[in-house]
């Protein structure tokens, strides 16, 4: 296997100082191979966005190293040398907010070309036309401003901007969360097509199991800042080993109506599912308070990420074992 595009080693990101210090990302290590998609699955507050921002150099990690193509990522300062952004790009969640409302689409798109490729004006216009064609955007929209465009159109532009400098890695932070299902499907298809043609790697961050599963080769599940499970996408989805991953997968709404059994309108039999109280602790497994098979060990020591079968890693003292593996 060739050298991975992205190597994250023992990354820790914290915010605040002293008593107010919170750990957003806690000793996370992962690798993304060239032209593949690594899906980060997690709910709000799990640290997935902080991980993405650290990879982009937008936050300063407390510990650990991030290498893109073997080159250490340095945090962006106000003043920085141009050229660093050539290898990594970004697509954010809010498509309209990630484009400057005061600038025309064509200006936003031309920026990375101007910086990295040093095109002439004519060559730049031609390159922009090629890009808009690639992302399936109507060229007549180029003169408009973001407010005049739909969310799907803006996300295509944001993707075009990310692809423009032919990066090796694109961090996609919830790129389809605000979109309608039909638009979402189209944008995901576009991302898959671009990966096939450019062999770009994605660090794909989302809370949506369905979305991550569609695009990812490998999936990492984050909970309370830690990577708790990591493995080939099909493996993680079909045979989750961490109880949290299992809950996450079961919670995803689908069309097979397995939840549609209504209880009879009998007020004596109340079974209202309570909202769990999350209490942050310094040691032990963060998921222990919500875990159905938590035992005393879980409250005492934090489980480390251990490799199980077939490059499937899990951080749990008592991982779930699926039937077909228990030989």
């Amino acid at each position, binding site marked *: 296997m060739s050298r991975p595009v992205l190597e994250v080693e023992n990354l820790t990101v914290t915010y605040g100082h002293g008593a107010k210090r919170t750990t957003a990302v806690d000793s996370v290590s992962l690798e993304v191979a060239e032209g593949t998609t690594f899906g980060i699955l997690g709910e709000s507050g799990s640290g997935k966005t902080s991980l993405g921002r650290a990879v982009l150099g937008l936050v300063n990690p407390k510990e650990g190293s991030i290498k893109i193509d073997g080159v250490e990522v340095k945090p962006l300062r*106000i003043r920085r040398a141009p050229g660093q952004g050539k290898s990594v790009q970004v697509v954010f969640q*809010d498509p309209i907010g990630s484009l400057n409302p005061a600038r025309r689409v064509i200006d936003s798109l031309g920026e990375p070309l101007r910086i990295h490729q040093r095109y002439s004006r004519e060559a730049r216009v031609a390159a922009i036309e090629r890009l808009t064609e690639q992302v399936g955007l109507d060229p007549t929209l180029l003169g408009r401003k973001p407010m005049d465009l739909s969310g799907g159109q803006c996300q295509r532009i944001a993707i075009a901007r990310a692809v423009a400098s032919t990066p090796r890695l694109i961090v996609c932070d919830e790129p389809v969360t605000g979109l309608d299902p039909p638009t979402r499907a189209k944008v995901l298809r576009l991302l898959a097509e671009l990966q096939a043609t450019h062999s770009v790697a994605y660090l794909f961050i989302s809370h949506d199991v369905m979305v991550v599963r569609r695009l990812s080769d490998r999936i990492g599940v984050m909970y309370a800042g830690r990577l708790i499970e990591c493995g080939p996408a099909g493996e993680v989805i079909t045979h989750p080993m961490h109880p949290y991953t299992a809950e996450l997968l079961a919670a995803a709404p689908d069309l097979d109506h397995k939840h549609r059994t209504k209880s*009879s309108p009998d007020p004596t039999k109340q079974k209202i599912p309570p909202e769990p109280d999350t209490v942050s602790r310094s040691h032990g497994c963060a998921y222990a308070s919500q875990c159905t098979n938590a035992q005393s060990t879980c409250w005492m020591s934090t489980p480390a990420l251990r490799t199980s079968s077939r490059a499937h890693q899990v951080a749990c003292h008592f991982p779930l074992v699926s039937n077909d593996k228990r030989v």
Partner: protein
Amino acid sequence: MKFFQDLVKWSRIRLTHGVLLAAIWLVVVCGAALLAPLITPYNPNSQNLLATNLGPSWQHLLGTDNLGRDTLSRAIFAARVALPAAAIGTFVAVALGLAVGVSAGYIGGLWDRISMRAVDAVLALPGLIVAIAVVGAVGPSLLHAMVTLGLLASVAYARLARGVVMSVRHRDYIDAARVTGETASHVLLREVMPNVLGPLVVQATLTFAHMLLAEAALSFIGLGVQAPQASWGSMLNSARSQIDNDPFLALPPGLALFLTVLSVQTLGDGLRNAAGTAGRSKPRPLGNLNVLASAVRSNGTEQPAEEATGRILPSEPALVVDSLCVSVVGTADRSAAPDETLIVEDLSLVLAKGEALGLVGESGSGKSMTALALIGLLPPGIRVIAGSIHLGSHDLLRMSDTSMNAIRGDRIAMIFQNPARSLDPVRNIGSQIAEPLRIHRQLSRSQAKRQAVELLGRVGVQRPSKRVNDYPHQLSGGQMQRVMIAAALACSPDLLIADEPTTALDTTVQRRILDLLRELQSQEAMAMLFISHDLAVVSDICDRIAVMRAGRIVEQGPAGDLTDRPRHPYTRALLATEMSLDTPDVTLSDPLQTSTSLRQL
């Protein structure tokens, strides 16, 4: 003329009569000032002591002053003083203010703190008096006075620019630009500055008007331009001494000053209105829906009619909506006649007691507007034009505002997408849950609080008697949505409208909220209208599903039936996009294309 039209279009100014007149006056004044030596009939400073204090005549259109100088010529030459002076003052204010404000906002830290304290100090100085003091110290000079005034006025720009820069510097597009590798100066110049420019131009016109007045005031008291040079201020001063025997003399300079300042400010107002709508050329849904609605109308006969009416006719309906039409009164283009655009067309729904109906559609399909019409809270400019809504025996559309208020929150309750925005951050959650009870049931404070604790427990919040005193920021998103549900259920409504109640929540939290809603709904035997763009969520919780598109219900049926055997091609396409990545490329967003494919079917 073409150029002028382009200019107006580009600047997005709405050409009202006021703005047009103001622009014409300013063009006249500027033109006259530029061409003054050519167009003035007399030398402004040549005296004719034989013709003093003359009234208007054909020789002297605006008469002469006490030294026999032509008033018209002097008034025109005075514009050559006033306009450049105001321009210098404004330029100094804008340039200095921008430099300080933008750098303070972008760099932040120590520089920000030092410069902003300096700005605060300068704000405390009275401008005109400082200018007079400076002129007193360095000798009478209009230039010195205007530069001083510009320096003092720059603080407003520094604060404005700093505010805008601070608000945009952590936006996604700035981060995206930094990741791209743009240097700091480029980020400032190309990404940040365009955002500052809009409010800046508006502020600059106001400063310009202020500077015109300041120049006149300084010249009036003799600290600006020196005699015999003409200025509107000095002309007014000499008119003041003659006010008893020639009151007309004050009129031309006074009017010139008045009209010019007024015009600059009117133009500024026009610019501000344009800036307020900049980037939002017209409300987008109107344009799109216009096409959609007409496409639907032209296609109306081909809708499978028996599908749209629904097959289950419940015995005891809680809610009956019959051929509801909601329209937007178009205000996008002032010149065009007001056009009514249908956003909900001929919508009929029946909800039985204890039934959950899911309303599914893309954004802009009119599902939220249907909900707002039901609860009688349509935004201004949007109204129901036909149809009826019956909740039990109440005819909701024929009710007065007061009786509708009595129904809202009591018989109909609603929960919204974003609980964090729907809850009042400065009141504890107990009082917010109890509010409908206090209004509709006239409960006392302590009774209401007891009820609130009970409700909180019912929606699965743990330790409710303790949590009831919490404020929204102390709760998680799922807990906040539970609070919203508790408040909605307080008066045991007949109908609960849930508009995307789980869209903003995490998957596991969404699961729990859906379970909660389903459980409560079957316990309470209340009807629920569940609105979502997510077919999977809706099929999970609802008995029946109605699929909405471009203001119409295109298909309606029992949940399992509709997802297993969709009949309408749109439902099929919607299902397909939910299922997998490898869907055939159906262009859902193009109504015309889909309607042709409909016709082929």
